Structures are given as C-alpha cells and as structure tokens.
C-alpha cells in the first residue's frame, strides 16, 4: 500500500514537471533538436535540472541497504554497450525527432485530450507489444 502511494506521488511530481516545463508541447522538443534552425535550449535546462537533483540524491539513496518500502533496490546490472542498446536508442531518437514526443511527455500529454498524444501512446503500446512478440 505504502509503495503504491509513493508511486502515485512520484508520478504526480513527474507529470507536474513535464507539463510546467512544456515538454508536453512537441514544438518545444523539436526546436531543442533543431540546433541549426530555430533552437530552443529549454530541454537542456529540464534535463540539467533533473540530473542535478538525481546526481546528488542517488549518491545518498544508494548508500542505504535497501529502499524504505521494499526489500531491495531494483537496478539495471549490465554495463556492456551492445548493438541492441545502440540500435534501440537510434530508433528511439528517430521516433522522438519525428513527432517531438518521448514516452513520458507522450503519456502526460494525454491529459490535454487531443488526438495526437493519444495516437502516439497507441503506437507506443503496439511498438512495445511488437517487440515482445519477437524471438529473443
């Protein structure tokens, strides 16, 4: 129960942050990526602000034996850079640059009640489902 409430509150903060910084507006994101044209550096401040906090807080949090509401930390353990990682990231960047949405803002923008974010999320789910169907 406690961990579900924690997840809800974390989600609320995340959604607030994405919307206040207007990452839910595709033009803000595409203009960030348009470094040779109409550049909008805002996304660097969003990312910078977020990483500034996590860079410090994670140091302290990961010194604990375990998280407050769970038995253990659930962290990725791999450190090798393989073709799946790079290929996946390359594809992700292409999709990001096409519409101006990554998963977080796409889902948060559902709250606008527009067709475009809804279609993005439908595509997102189908793409994830399609990946699951592939043989490993």
């Amino acid at each position, binding site marked *: 129960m406690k961990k579900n409430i*924690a*997840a809800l509150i*974390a*989600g609320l*903060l*995340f*959604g*607030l942050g*994405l919307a206040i*910084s*207007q990452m839910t*507006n*595709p033009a*803000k994101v595409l*203009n960030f990526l348009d470094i040779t044209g*109409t*550049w*909008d*550096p805002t996304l660097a401040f*969003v*990312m910078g602000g*977020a990483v*500034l*906090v*996590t860079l410090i807080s994670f140091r302290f*949090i990961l010194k604990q034996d375990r*998280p*407050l509401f*769970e038995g253990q*930390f659930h962290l*990725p353990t791999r*450190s090798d*850079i393989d073709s799946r*990682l*790079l290929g*996946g*990231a*390359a*594809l992700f*960047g*292409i*999709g*990001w*640059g096409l519409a*101006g*949405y*990554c998963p977080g803002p*796409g889902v948060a*923008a559902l*709250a*606008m009640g527009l*067709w*475009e*974010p809804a279609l*993005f999320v439908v*595509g*997102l789910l189908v793409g*994830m489902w399609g*990946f*699951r169907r592939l043989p490993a």
Partner: protein
Amino acid sequence: MTIVNFTPWAGLIGGLLIGASASLLLWLNGRIAGISGIVAGATVEPGGDRAWRWLFLAGLLGGAALAFWLVPGSLAFQSDMPWPVFLVAGLIVGFGTRLGSGCTSGHGVCGLARLSPRSLASVATFMATGILTVFVIRHLLGVGA
C-alpha cells in the same frame, strides 16, 4: 541558428520536479523512474507488479492535468505534423525503447546520475539521431518550422 521561445526558469523548475520524482521513487520503492519501462511493465510485459506502475502513470497524467489547469501557458500544443506521424512515431519509440532498454527518463535522468556507461551511450545516440531526424525533416525536406 536563432534562439526561440526559450523558457529557462520553467524548464529548470520542471527539471527539479522530475529529479525529485526520480529520487523519491528510488528512495522509497527502489525503482528507476524510467517511463518506457514503467509503461511496458504495466501493459505488455508478463508478470511483475503492475499496481504501482499503473498508479505512477495515473499520477503522471494527474500531475500534468494539474499543471495545465494551474500554470498559465503550460497547456500548449504546437505541431506541424499530421496525425499519422504521431502513430508511426509512437511505434518506433515503443519498439526502440524496449530494444534499447530505456528512454529519456530511465537512461537520461536516472542512468546519467548512476554514471552508467550504457546510459551515456544511449543518450548520446538518441540525441544524435533525434537531431539528425529533425534536420532531415525541417531542412532537407522542408516540412515544418
């Protein structure tokens, strides 16, 4: 290059909130705030605990709705792309983030903070292909902006 619509303070405040969210989720639940992983875990991935993931996503929507309601100017949507592009982009992002084990939040906000070499490689790669895609669409094909 011309700088347009730059909103550094709103960006920084939003970023600090996102950082606080990721810190809270790791500190309390021991989880990485990676949105693509949370979406997949709540829907297409078998097994695992779905309840917290759905609640996180509900919060994500609720938080955004709250900001759209309370913060002037936050409810803005501008795009030159026709709607099918959003569907196709979603497909590519969904597939790509699973193949590459994460997106802007998991690899970006959390992975960089953990100084993960995989995350650094991921961020450099998706930034590069994102910039390249926008360059091709806007400056070679002349669509948008």
